[in-house]
């Protein structure tokens, strides 16, 4: 594991608790380190400081010293150095720690400031929590319980603002709920680099809007919904669908590309309602692409495969085809490391040639890399391939044409899409493992329905060679079987030795086969993933360009 860089530490005192924090830390983060929450709205750890909500006001003090001699001034009563408290409250978000700094986050003045800001934020805020999607994960609600007055002193008319503004195809705005924290504006400027949001009008009538003729339509627009501390920005997809407190959260990994964006899958009673990013400062910060959020829809897609006969029959039919010899195995960069390991094992038992379908495309420089396979590195680690794959299966096509391959086992890959012609598909017997119907499943002699990434657990290795695990969020579709089980059953059916299908068992053999995994087990993979030693593949050229937290290794100078 890569050690965090050594940083200079600064000792500060938060509510009397002494703590050494890295230089440059702000007071909100420093307080977090001692377990104290400083409430805030506009501050976001991954955006620039705006300092506009004034919720994080704290008291700040510095040890007193004599101006001339710099000698500390002691308090005879306590025997400690006197603290010079600044009479005005300061915002914690834009205050960086300095040695010896004292902070009060719980004093009467701080409490009064928070109550004042809360009252101000609520006077023009609609009382529509019962129909607001943010309810249950709303900062305003949360902090109203801590710092709200409980009754209103405001008897005037509330401001009236637009209630339903369509900012873009995926984002709706309720301006009355907006607390004008400017997080969404800063996100668009600083992260999405698509400066389309701004405030018009002024004072309490300030209104968030898109620039004339523009739309919030970039592929990161839904992050504004995530970071909106209130219910002003809502997702048109999730809006009015489900109360958040009914939803189960499952940690997952976005399979969209080799970035390996960390996600949370929100589900209830076997249905997924939304996918949001999960913070990982080494991978995706707190962001994710809109396109990755829509992937859950494939779970309920009309073209999900259902079994044509009983599972043992399917396995037996598949195994009998595979036993005929001259097999080619087309593995997948979308399979988990565990599945790839089992695939490689099966291929080895069958003495089959192995292929992988590459998905090289254009990266967006942020959280979608050029390699749209989430787990190409896993295929390298498990020995399914030895170098990054091409998008088209030209070698397999040639082998089929030459008559060297009679049977093809495809792990979820559509061979037609990967460049095989209908004639070539017709020349071979196909065993297809997959979740959705396509040209290959249609041409296959045996089709075994398997699960989507949301219905199973496993791990991916992203472009940084970081192994990250995902867990099954919902039960698998009726009749579909976990890929690991299918692969293991096929392995035993062709006469191989079972490697087990539960993760712990597979991992025992997997770790033993790949020395760089050491004594790692599935359970031991940290939530933030674990960087693996990639030196064995450092001579390879990968398609990825620069993305957030990833810089490709500089190209080797060719002699």
């Amino acid at each position, binding site marked *: 594991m890569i050690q965090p860089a050594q940083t200079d530490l600064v000792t500060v005192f938060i509510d009397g608790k002494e703590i050494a924090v890295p230089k440059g830390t702000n007071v909100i983060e420093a307080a977090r380190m001692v377990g104290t929450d400083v409430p805030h709205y506009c501050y976001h750890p991954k955006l620039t*400081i*705006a*300092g*506009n*909500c*004034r*919720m994080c*006001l704290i008291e700040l003090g510095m040890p007193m010293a004599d101006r001339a001699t710099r000698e500390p001034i002691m308090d005879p009563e306590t025997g400690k150095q006197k603290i010079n408290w600044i009479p*005005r*409250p300061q*915002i914690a978000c*834009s*205050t960086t720690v300095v040695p010896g700094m004292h902070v009060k986050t719980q004093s009467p003045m701080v409490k*009064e*400031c928070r109550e*004042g*800001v809360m*009252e*101000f*934020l609520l*006077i*023009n805020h609609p009382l529509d929590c019962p129909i607001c999607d943010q309810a249950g994960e709303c900062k305003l609600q949360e902090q109203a319980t801590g710092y709200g007055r409980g009754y209103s*002193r*405001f008897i*005037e*008319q509330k*401001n009236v603002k637009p209630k339903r503004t369509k900012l873009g195809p995926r984002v709706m705005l309720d301006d009355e709920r907006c*607390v*004008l924290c400017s997080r969404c504006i800063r996100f668009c400027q600083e992260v999405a680099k698509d400066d389309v949001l*701004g*405030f018009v*009008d*002024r*004072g*309490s*009538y*300030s209104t968030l809007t898109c620039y004339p003729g523009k739309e919030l339509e970039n592929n990161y627009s839904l992050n504004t919904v995530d970071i909106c501390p209130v219910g002003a920005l809502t997702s048109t997809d999730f809006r009015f669908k489900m109360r958040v407190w009914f939803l189960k959260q499952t940690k997952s990994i976005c399979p969209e590309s080799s970035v390996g964006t960390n996600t949370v899958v929100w589900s209830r009673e076997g249905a997924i309602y939304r996918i949001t990013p999960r913070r990982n400062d080494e991978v995706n910060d707190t962001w994710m692409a809109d396109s990755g959020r829509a992937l859950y829809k494939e779970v309920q897609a009309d073209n999900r495969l259902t079994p044509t006969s009983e599972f043992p029959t399917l396995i037996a039919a598949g195994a009998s085809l595979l036993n005929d010899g001259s097999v080619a195995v087309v593995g997948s960069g979308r399979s988990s490391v565990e599945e790839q390991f089992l695939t490689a094992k099966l291929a080895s038992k069958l003495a089959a040639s192995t292929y992988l379908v590459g998905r090289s495309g254009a990266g967006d420089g942020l959280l979608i890399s050029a390699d749209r396979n989430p787990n190409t590195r896993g295929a390298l680690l498990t020995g399914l391939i030895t170098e990054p794959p091409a998008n088209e299966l030209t070698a397999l096509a040639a082998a089929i044409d030459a008559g060297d391959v009679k049977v093809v086992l495809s792990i979820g890959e559509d061979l037609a899409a990967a460049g095989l012609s209908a004639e070539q598909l017709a020349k071979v017997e196909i065993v297809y493992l997959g979740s959705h119907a396509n040209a290959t499943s249609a041409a296959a002699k045996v089709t075994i329905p398997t699960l989507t990434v949301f219905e199973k657990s496993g791990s991916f290795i992203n472009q940084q060679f970081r192994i990250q695990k995902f867990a099954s969020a919902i039960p698998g579709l009726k009749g579909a079987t976990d890929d690991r089980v299918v692969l293991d059953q096929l392995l035993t059916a062709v006469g191989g030795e079972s490697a087990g299908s539960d993760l712990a068992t597979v991992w025992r053999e997997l770790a033993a086969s790949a020395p760089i995994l050491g004594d790692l087990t599935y359970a031991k993979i940290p939530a933030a993933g674990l960087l693996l030693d990639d030196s064995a593949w450092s001579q390879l050229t990968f398609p990825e360009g620069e993305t957030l937290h990833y810089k490709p290794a500089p190209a080797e100078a060719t002699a």
Partner: protein
Amino acid sequence: MPAPAERRIIFKHIDEEGYSNDIACYQKHGGYDVLQKAVTEKPEDIRDEVKKSGLRGRGGAGFSCGLKWSFVDRKSGKPIYLVVNADESEPGTFKDRYIIHQDPHQLIEGTMVSCFANDVKQAYIYIRGEFPEGARILERAIQEARDAGFVGKNICGTDYSCDIFVHRGAGAYICGEETGLIESLEGKRANPRIKPPYFPAVLGLYQCPTIVNNVETLCHVKHILEMGADEYLKIGTPNNTGTRIFCVSGQVQKPGYYEYACGEVTIGQLLNDVCGGPLEGRQFKAVIPGGSSAKILRFGETFTIKNKDGTEKTLAVEDIPLDFDSLAACGTMGGSGGVIVMDDSVNMVEALANINAFYSHESCGQCTPCREGSLWMKKISSRMVHGEARPEDGELMVSVANQIAGRTICAFGEACSWPTQSFVAKFGDEFKTYNEDKKSRAADSLELV
């Protein structure tokens, strides 16, 4: 004691018969002599002279000009900018516009001298959008000065070059706040910046060290160099040096502008002797001494302030000398010098409703307390005037004001809460009985707002 004579330095030629705003007239009266001499001196000597003079900013805060200049980061390697704050927007203030309209070269000379003193290569005059004529006059005057070699390349034949651009604001009070002004000058919404880290002296215009000075302040710089800091120090009182221009408006016989040495006249002298006292048959009720955001003073109240020697003295409003420190000691401020006078015909609830309407309209809306609080106070006071007033409304407004002051990004928080705090503190009874007062008033009385 009768008022002393006016001491006109900045306004020496304002409204003078035959004085025009062209360069020929200015030079005939000794104009640009100071600049010609200054460019032969060392910049740091000029800065020392200004520091020594004790000049305090005339824009409102009364901060030491020399000290402000000393904060400038001169080692960053970035250019240093000077911005002239001509966004004169504080209600009751109308001094800078006279300088700009009638004596623009005085400002240009003061600006150029200050630029030279601070190694500035580019200066901007940020003039409020409502001064189109002023902007035209300044443009013409700068061109005249450029043609004469006082602005632009190789000033006065030396190798020092510095140009001035006039930038017209788009009309918002907050553009006068120095960091808001800088944002506006950069082409953005004039949202004031958070300090720290954006102190103009370090991270100002285009993230470069920047000096923002008021029009009148820069004119004073010219006169300090002309007469020397020692001579300038003799004007006014210690720590309150030089002259001040008072813009008297409201219910007095002779409103207008008057220039006096700081602390030389008292409020009573200014209003009674100089401005001719209250209107026929009226009595003074209250005065706001430094622009509408300054705390109001009620005639009849007294203040006990400490002398230098530790003794105390009791002052009536009429006895307060008009200088920064005395006004601060009496709980208000010298501010921008806008003296707003109200007599006994004014209802304080209605006057406050007017002020609250102004500040809620001008709040930029960036930070919560000011954005929500200023409009809340406006809604309360305007409901009191136009609808039903409750006896507790005054106290409620003060409580709102207390939740704003000291908790905002910029000083607008204080500007919008001080009027409410002081009006209710000093005229609390009027707020309690406003409903009855309104009903009992003559039917033909004018309604404000």
